[in-house]
């Protein structure tokens, strides 16, 4: 089982990738959502590694269930679920029938339909990743165990 420090190290690598992707988010916007989620996942695992009652979890659904059921993690759950959901859309949503509806423009056809580049930071990262990390800090060792936190765009 990996330790808190090991999970935080992986989360920090995800943060480095996130920063790289955000230099030109139009290039692969969907991966911003995916990497943000995986960063959060490793923060959750870092927290769980300190919780003998929970321990390491290999499965997305069980991890969500644990966050939801353990009273102290409910706030984390409500934010993490949104990051998971957005990453699922980014990775797996492909509407093959959308071409037959071209012109109507109502059906999802690409990730930017869902999260336009201009909304990526304010609507997903600033609102959910940043608040997730703020909340997660309550469960990590002091100084967030060395977690490199996402800096909301507004503070730039």
């Amino acid at each position: 089982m990996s330790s808190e420090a090991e999970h935080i190290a992986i989360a920090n690598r995800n943060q480095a990738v996130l920063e790289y992707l955000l230099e030109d988010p139009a290039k692969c916007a969907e991966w911003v959502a995916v990497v943000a989620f995986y960063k959060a996942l490793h923060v959750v695992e870092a927290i769980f590694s300190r919780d003998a009652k929970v321990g390491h979890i290999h499965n997305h659904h069980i991890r969500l269930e644990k966050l939801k059921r353990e009273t102290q993690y409910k706030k984390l759950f409500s934010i993490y679920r949104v990051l998971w959901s957005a990453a699922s859309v980014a990775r797996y949503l492909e509407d093959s029938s959308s071409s037959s509806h071209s012109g109507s423009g109502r059906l999802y056809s690409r990730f930017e339909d869902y999260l336009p580049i201009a909304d990526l930071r304010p609507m997903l990262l600033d609102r959910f990743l940043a608040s997730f990390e703020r909340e997660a800090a309550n469960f990590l060792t002091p100084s967030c165990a060395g977690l490199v936190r996402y800096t909301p765009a507004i503070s730039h």
Partner: protein
Amino acid sequence: MHAFTTSLDSCGCVQARTKLEEVDLTFFLILANCLGRVCDTVCRSSTKDDLMLATQKRPAWQYLNQVAGGRVLISPKEGEPFGLSIDDVVAACRSQENIASFTEQVCDLLDRVAKWLGERASEIHKAYFGLEPDGAVVAVVRQDKRFNPDFETALSELDLSIADDPTFNLIKLRVFALPFCSDETVASFVKYTHSWPAPKAPE
């Protein structure tokens, strides 16, 4: 997986048995249904193997005999009745003893979700329900394609409120929203058995 056989006994009660364990599910399946929401006349044909139910008001759920295994017929307040395989139900509730209570909770869950959907009718295109081995899944397809942080937060609150409600103690639920997309696309996310039509906005 268990192979179930069913028959009608002398009292007209359905006997459901697994060949492996000879567990009589009658008690669990019928009694809990009676304790639940089945209040109206149930006419049963004793001349056929299959349970024939003619009701003035449909029960919330029924156990149906099928040659290749049992099915639970769910009749939600809103939408068409739909079937769940008994194997899926057993997998999702992880216990034969809890089948009846679990099915009752699924019926209540459908009502609860329908109410939530109704309150957000203007934002929702359609919603889907499926039962997977690790629990129940609800996918909500929005009217538009855009990510909506407030809607997502409300969905998290719904998820948490159901998890906190002891009425649903047997159900593990996963909910998520999808941008406006086709039924086929939703099917790649959830093997659904039921969908809610576009809810009508309150007048």
